[in-house]
């Protein structure tokens, strides 16, 4: 889609300096995991809103016998009369109730620091303890690695794999030792319902 509508001198110069800028750029390794976690929550939220809206706006047809119709009309009249009488002695207004929509997953950031590490990955019950499936990426700070992943609320066990072979439990979290003596760390993730 190039055209030569510019000063040819500009074109030659710009072409030369633009070439290195056309190199592809790659964002952090966990970019897509974070994005998809947000997207999943957004789609769930939209789904709830749409379902509620649909219920109120969908046309419905009910059938009933004349006798049932009369009984319903009488019931409505009684409720209306009772409400009118109760107007004068209304109780103090209740605080408004807001329907909250909570995400089913939360984004959890795992951080690991080791100046000798050349690679770090995360293993846990959430990724079938598969080495290399969830790599941490080096942050701007030397020796500090991190990854953010979506997790469901509850108890999770995890550990880090350093340089592809060294198993390290998170020194900042409570530990757990399985029947074979392997130590892992435990993360108790409260649901957003619990937090509110």
């Amino acid at each position, binding site marked *: *889609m*190039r*055209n030569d*509508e*510019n*000063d040819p001198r*500009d074109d030659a*110069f*710009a*072409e*030369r*300096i*633009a070439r*290195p*800028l*056309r*190199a*592809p*750029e*790659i*964002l*952090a390794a966990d*970019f*897509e995991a*974070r*994005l*998809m976690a*947000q*997207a*999943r929550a*957004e*789609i769930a939220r*939209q*789904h709830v809103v749409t379902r509620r809206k649909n219920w109120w706006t969908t046309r419905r047809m009910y059938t009933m016998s004349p006798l049932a119709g009369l009984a319903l009309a009488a019931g409505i009249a009684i409720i209306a009369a009772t409400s009118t009488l109760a107007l004068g002695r209304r109780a103090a207004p209740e605080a408004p109730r807001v329907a909250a929509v909570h995400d089913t997953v939360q984004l959890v950031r795992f951080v690991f620091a080791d100046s000798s590490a050349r690679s770090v990955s995360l293993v846990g019950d959430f990724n079938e303890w598969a080495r290399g499936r969830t790599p941490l990426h*080096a942050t*701007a700070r030397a020796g500090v690695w991190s990854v953010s992943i979506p997790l469901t609320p509850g108890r999770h066990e995890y550990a880090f794999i350093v340089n592809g072979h060294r198993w390290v439990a998170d020194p900042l979290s409570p530990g757990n030792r399985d029947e074979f003596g392997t130590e892992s760390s435990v993360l108790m993730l409260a649901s957003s319902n619990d937090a509110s």
Partner: protein
Amino acid sequence: MIVERGTKSDAELIRALSEGDLDAFAALVERYRDACTRFAVRMTGSALDADDVMQSVWMRALRNIRSCKNPDRFGAWLYQIVINESRTYTKRRHQRDSRFIDDEFIVDSIPAAEQPDLAMREETQAEIQRALDCLPAEQREAFVLKYVEEMDYETMAELTGVGVSALKMRVSRACERLRVLLEGVNHA
């Protein structure tokens, strides 16, 4: 609904996404990720800042997908969001007066295997990016669209909402300024 990535048109993916199909969203992200990411990094000057911009871009696209009136032109629609988010981000950063270019991160974030001449290009790219970051945002935007993304002026005008003659002026001024800034590194 199962979406086979790469085989569906944008319109089909958008239809599926409107029905809440997360796989369709993932397929769109994969399809447009590279071009949008490069533009965001060039505009913000840093992969870290571009990360924020691109998260906002994709979430805005997802929330407003029903307002994409012409699904066959999803790419152009998305690019407008990228441009707007980049503008907002650079404006906010300018207001904070905290210009920060993490050149090291940009270079480190590119796997060496995909960059055969990385060592040679590393310094040049960082220098040019730094010079680019010194330009006023509208000049930087025009220059990147014209020469990095290789768009013609009509497309640029459509995406930015700026007239062709104004864009030409911005590109020309950007070149003029870059020539001054890079005199020491570019032996033009």
